[in-house]
């Protein structure tokens, strides 16, 4: 399937800053071609916080890298990616480098590995200011202190002259957020920004990102494997599976009315505090399909508890739910929700019990 339904585009509440249309990313490998993203279409509103959720290998990080143009040489992008109407796919690395930092910036996953260990924090934070904003030394110093205050780093003057090893993980992540914000980007990409952090620090970093996003009126894409993380700090969620968007909805809507069996399965496999101890967790049998394999039909069919013959024969398109045009799903037999009038899934086999 090469094109998505036109009306299936996730509509953003406001003017999109990034438009992605039928994006396909493939890797050349010795064994052949591997497709990591297949026909992804989405719009990102200019003040929207979008969560992208999926398991390892679902293509969620690749989507961010494909939008930013941060792909290795063996990768190939086709389709359309635009930033404020400007095409990004055809840009060379030099033109892209001017956009990184000023238009689009990234907060990486591992704060331990993303700072230069032998340079002082201050000098690392001043670098983008020299490069992009052409600030002088005094102005850059002043701006770095402001940035440090903005991300809640205590005692900025002291931190300025310290080295990364003198900071805790949470503080290093704050430094990296300051670095990402240094040149006032319009879009902030955060790829699993809290995975390497403790739960107490995680909450602080997530709230910081959400507050800064709203305060600076930026767009944000938050990539995570944790449905709990997106629940509290995004406006809309996209669920990815095997290189495709399988469900997209405003965050409250997604949690109250999941339609895609995969989303439901992902949600049920999380241990929850409101269940009694030793509650048996629901598992998704099997594993995601090999990205090199050609699959006809729904990519989730082999693991889906509600699978029917039709699911194996043809891949369902990403369609909007008639009740809510902002809620898209990719399923022939979406999960019946109490308020809806969609088709009712008929389980033909029980979810396999281990």
């Amino acid at each position, binding site marked *: 399937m090469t094109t998505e339904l036109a009306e299936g585009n996730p509509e953003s509440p406001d003017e999109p800053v990034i438009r992605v249309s039928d994006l396909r990313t493939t890797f050349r490998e010795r064994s052949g071609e591997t497709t990591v993203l297949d026909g992804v279409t989405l719009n990102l509103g200019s003040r929207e916080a979008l969560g992208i959720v999926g398991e390892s290998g679902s293509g969620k990080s690749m989507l961010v890298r494909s939008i930013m143009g941060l792909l290795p040489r063996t990768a190939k992008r086709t389709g359309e990616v635009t930033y404020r109407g400007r095409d990004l796919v055809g840009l060379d690395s030099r033109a892209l480098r001017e956009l990184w930092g000023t238009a689009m910036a990234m907060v990486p996953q591992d704060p331990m590995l993303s700072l230069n260990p032998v340079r002082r924090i201050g000098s690392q934070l001043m670098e983008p200011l020299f490069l992009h904003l052409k600030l002088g030394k005094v102005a850059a110093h002043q701006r770095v202190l402001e940035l440090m205050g903005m991300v809640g780093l205590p005692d900025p003057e002291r931190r300025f002259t310290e080295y990364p090893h003198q900071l805790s993980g949470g503080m290093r992540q704050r430094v990296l957020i300051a670095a990402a914000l240094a040149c006032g980007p319009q879009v902030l990409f955060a790829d699993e920004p809290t995975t390497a952090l403790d739960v107490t620090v995680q909450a602080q970093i997530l*709230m910081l990102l959400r507050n800064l996003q709203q305060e600076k009126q930026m767009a944000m894409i938050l990539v995570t494997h944790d449905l709990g993380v997106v629940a509290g700090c995004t406006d809309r969620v996209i669920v990815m599976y095997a290189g495709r968007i399988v469900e997209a909805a405003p965050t409250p809507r997604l949690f109250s009315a999941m339609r895609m069996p995969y989303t439901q399965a992902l949600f049920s496999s999380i241990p929850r505090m409101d269940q009694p101890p030793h509650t048996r967790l629901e598992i998704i049998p099997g594993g995601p399909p090999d990205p090199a394999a050609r699959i006809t039909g729904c990519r989730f069919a082999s693991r889906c508890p509600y699978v029917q013959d039709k699911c194996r024969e043809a891949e369902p398109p990403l369609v909007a739910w008639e009740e809510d045009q902002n809620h898209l799903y990719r399923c022939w037999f979406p999960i019946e929700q109490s308020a809806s009038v969609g088709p009712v899934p008929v389980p033909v086999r029980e979810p396999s019990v281990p």
Partner: protein
Amino acid sequence: MTELSDERPGPQDETLLRIDDLVVNYPVPHSDQKVHAVSGVSLEVKRGETLGLVGESGCGKSTLGRALLQLPRPTSGAVSYEGVDLTRLRERELRKYRSSLQMIFQDPIASLNPRWSVARIVSDPLAVHDRGTRQQRREKTAEVLSAVGLDPSTMQERRPHQLSGGQSQRVAIARALVLEPALIVCDEPVSALDVSVQAQILNLLEDMKDRYDLSLLFISHDLAVVHNISDRVAVMYLGKLCEVGTPDAIFKHPAHPYTQALIRSIPVPSPGAAPEADEHLAADLPSPIHPPSGCRFRTRCPLATERCAAEEPQLVRVDADQFVACHYPLWPAPKTREYVPASSTRSSNASTAE
């Protein structure tokens, strides 16, 4: 200082492993200072129970788990298994207990020898402990591989790089099970896994516990996971226990301010439920080289008073299934609280520093 003996959490009769006033200090290189990783922990693991151990990174939870297995040897205190104090045994005598106490680790791929086949990895402990004939070892290996959900005929010749993260963790569990241990120390066994795989491994651990009559010490920073799998939970902070109790007691009415802060910071997978960033917790974990006097949590505690700096709180019973080390516990509600002092110690290990 002994924490308790009279009111030690857990009944005395079915004790499998008993830790008394365990202390682990690490030397700081090139100085006379010490890292106080574990400072006087007393705890019991009952036969057939899963004891969850939670805390932030650096709180000493992994050190405690390893010290039970004498890896490394604790600085002082006792670890009694079936009435034998393991800390007093010589390496050779200790060996026969090693088969009863096994461990699985966080990174499943890094904990397997990349050059060995799955069959060799799993059967190696049998060879080391000189159990059975070759044929018997082969049969036992096949049996545990099937038990952990891996088909021996297809899996046993594979090497770790051919396994997924979930399969690798199953192999690590099979290796721990092959000697039929009584206790497995699980150090963050699901932290590196996707949620769907995490659910499979958690269910597997529950099944294995029943099938092989195991006790588990389950170390994790993830409170929802610990809540799901544990019969009792111990919360650790900076080398000391803050709170011990059943998951129901601890998570429904935490008595220690630290436990409460931890619970509040969990991201909940429901919309609008933003994790609470506790500003007191924004302060960093104090250095374990110079831990605070009195209550170690007082530097980050919203309720701390002078008493907390002067006097170290002891672990006391506040409810049938709940013990807390706090001068101002949150449960039972402060007005109705009948304070039970810890002074009535029937010191068992005679190491009480009066």
